[in-house]
């Protein structure tokens, strides 16, 4: 007696991120800007790309089958098809009637998974063993392997973090569905973000960020450019950190505090720039040529000697009587408290007595009205405030180069007086910023 012949049916393709598959998160390739789900994530032809889901959700799979040429008679009536897996949901068996087109491919058939995805954030490698059952018994029809990325919650829409030059719309047929760049979903599912609350998740993201390989001070100011170039400036990093948290469904605020260059009598100005001497993420030194600074670092400030230093430091330049450059931060509001995240320089601070200023380029805000922002963050992260100031009977003036002016040296900036931020009294609006 011979065993019943297996029906001539094989797997052709398996799709996850199709419209209406609730719990699925569209993933976007930052290089091509295409969605991975524009084509089935798995094909018999060798395509195998990740799919993302909300943890604990029960999702579906849209499957096409192929008739094996020369394999005999295809099933004429209803058969039952499903898939088994270990350690992850399989495919719930269902009755189907296979109809093949002239190319031998079936119409897409929607299946449901036979259980919820794992309840925690993680990456899952799963192998589905497909079978077909007909009157003659059960027949294996193929194996498919998948990489699943399980997120904490439905992502935050990209309008939260994307610049106006970045793509924002979702896939065709799902324009309003939030999506995530593939590297961001991979990172955030692997950086220990599976436990705790929103604050712990953001802490884990900040701690994991160096593993991304992203570098501070690369010429990029939005998330996609940052992924393509391998880094960015703070104007990109605060979007990136918002996108990282957003991938796991956590909303962060972002703000920039811009330098308020206030000209004062006698060619003085307070302040011309904020000065940061730390290199930034995944860097060994600030990405600027050395410049001569005139540091004041001792109390009493008025009598402190000026310490001349030739050093690499970042200067975030203001513009006199206007809103210029500044630094970019994220803020999480949790449990009636604000938490500050500085992804560029890896600071995380619990703020007391702080309320997030509205974005407004017309209003300068003194740091003394911002709770412990100065003591807990600014004094630590921004080592010096650079001004044009009188000190010891001499004017230390900040002057930018204009080619053709007398004594001009190419690229030279004459730095004024750099006063250690912690020594600037937190009163009388000594330090003000625009928050935008």
């Amino acid at each position, binding site marked *: 007696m011979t065993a019943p012949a297996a029906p001539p049916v094989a797997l052709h393709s398996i799709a996850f991120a199709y419209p209406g598959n609730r719990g699925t998160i569209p993933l976007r390739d930052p290089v091509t800007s295409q969605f991975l789900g524009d084509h089935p994530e798995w094909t018999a032809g060798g395509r195998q790309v990740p799919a993302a889901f909300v943890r604990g959700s029960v999702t579906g799979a849209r499957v096409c089958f192929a008739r094996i040429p020369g394999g005999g008679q295809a099933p004429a009536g209803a058969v039952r098809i499903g898939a088994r897996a270990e350690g992850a949901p399989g495919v719930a068996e269902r009755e189907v009637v296979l109809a093949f087109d002239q190319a031998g491919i079936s119409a897409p058939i929607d299946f449901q998974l036979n259980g919820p995805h794992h309840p925690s954030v993680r990456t899952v490698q799963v192998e589905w063993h497909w079978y077909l059952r007909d009157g003659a018994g059960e027949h294996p029809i193929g194996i498919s392997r998948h990489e699943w990325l399980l997120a904490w919650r439905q992502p935050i829409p990209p309008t939260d973090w994307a610049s106006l030059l970045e793509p924002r719309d979702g896939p065709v047929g799902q324009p309003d569905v939030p999506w995530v760049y593939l590297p961001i979903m991979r990172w955030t599912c692997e950086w220990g973000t599976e436990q705790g609350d929103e604050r712990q998740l953001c802490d884990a993201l900040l701690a994991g960020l160096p593993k991304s390989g992203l570098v501070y001070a690369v010429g990029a100011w939005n998330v996609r450019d940052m992924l393509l170039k391998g880094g960015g400036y703070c*104007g990109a990093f605060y979007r990136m950190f918002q996108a990282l948290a957003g991938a796991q469904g956590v909303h962060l605020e972002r703000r920039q505090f811009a330098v308020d260059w206030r000209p004062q009598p006698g060619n003085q100005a307070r302040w011309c720039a904020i000065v940061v001497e730390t290199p930034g993420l995944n860097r060994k030194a600030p990405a600027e040529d050395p410049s001569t600074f005139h540091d004041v670092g001792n109390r009493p400030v008025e009598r402190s000697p000026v310490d001349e230093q030739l050093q690499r430091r970042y200067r975030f330049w203001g513009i*006199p009587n*206007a809103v210029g450059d500044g630094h970019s931060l994220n803020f999480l509001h949790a449990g009636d408290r604000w938490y500050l995240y500085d992804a560029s320089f890896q600071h995380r601070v619990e703020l007391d007595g702080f309320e997030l200023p509205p974005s407004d380029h017309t209003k300068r805000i003194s740091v003394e009205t911002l709770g412990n922002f100065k003591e807990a963050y600014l004094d630590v992260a921004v080592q010096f405030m650079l001004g044009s100031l009188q000190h010891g009977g001499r004017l230390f003036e900040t002057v*930018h180069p*204009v080619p*053709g002016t007398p004594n001009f040296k190419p*690229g030279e900036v004459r730095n004024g007086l750099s006063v250690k931020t912690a020594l600037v009294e937190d009163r009388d609006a000594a330090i003000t910023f625009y928050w935008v």
Partner: protein
Amino acid sequence: MDSPHDHLRHILAGDMLGGGRYTWRHVVGVLQRVREDGSEASHLVLREAAVFTGRLALDESQGLPHSMSPEDFLRWVAVQTLGAWDATRHRDVIARAAGLMEHEHLAVQARRLLA
């Protein structure tokens, strides 16, 4: 000798400075001088800067702006200045500049100057 206005036009055109490129420090310095000057020539060159659509070709060894792209910075400073000087006269370029900003907050703030 080129004036700051000439230099700003060179920067917008992507011209070289002697044997090298302009640095970010030059851009900031030139913008300052043009704003300090405040002449009709300053109005005109800042109108060009406000609606600049190219990419600035800079020597990056002296750093770049941190919070926004050099192009957004240039447009943003031009827009603020023109808005402060004569928002009615420069309404057309401020409106166009708002549509060119990459940073959405800058686009919003530029439109607020028109309100």
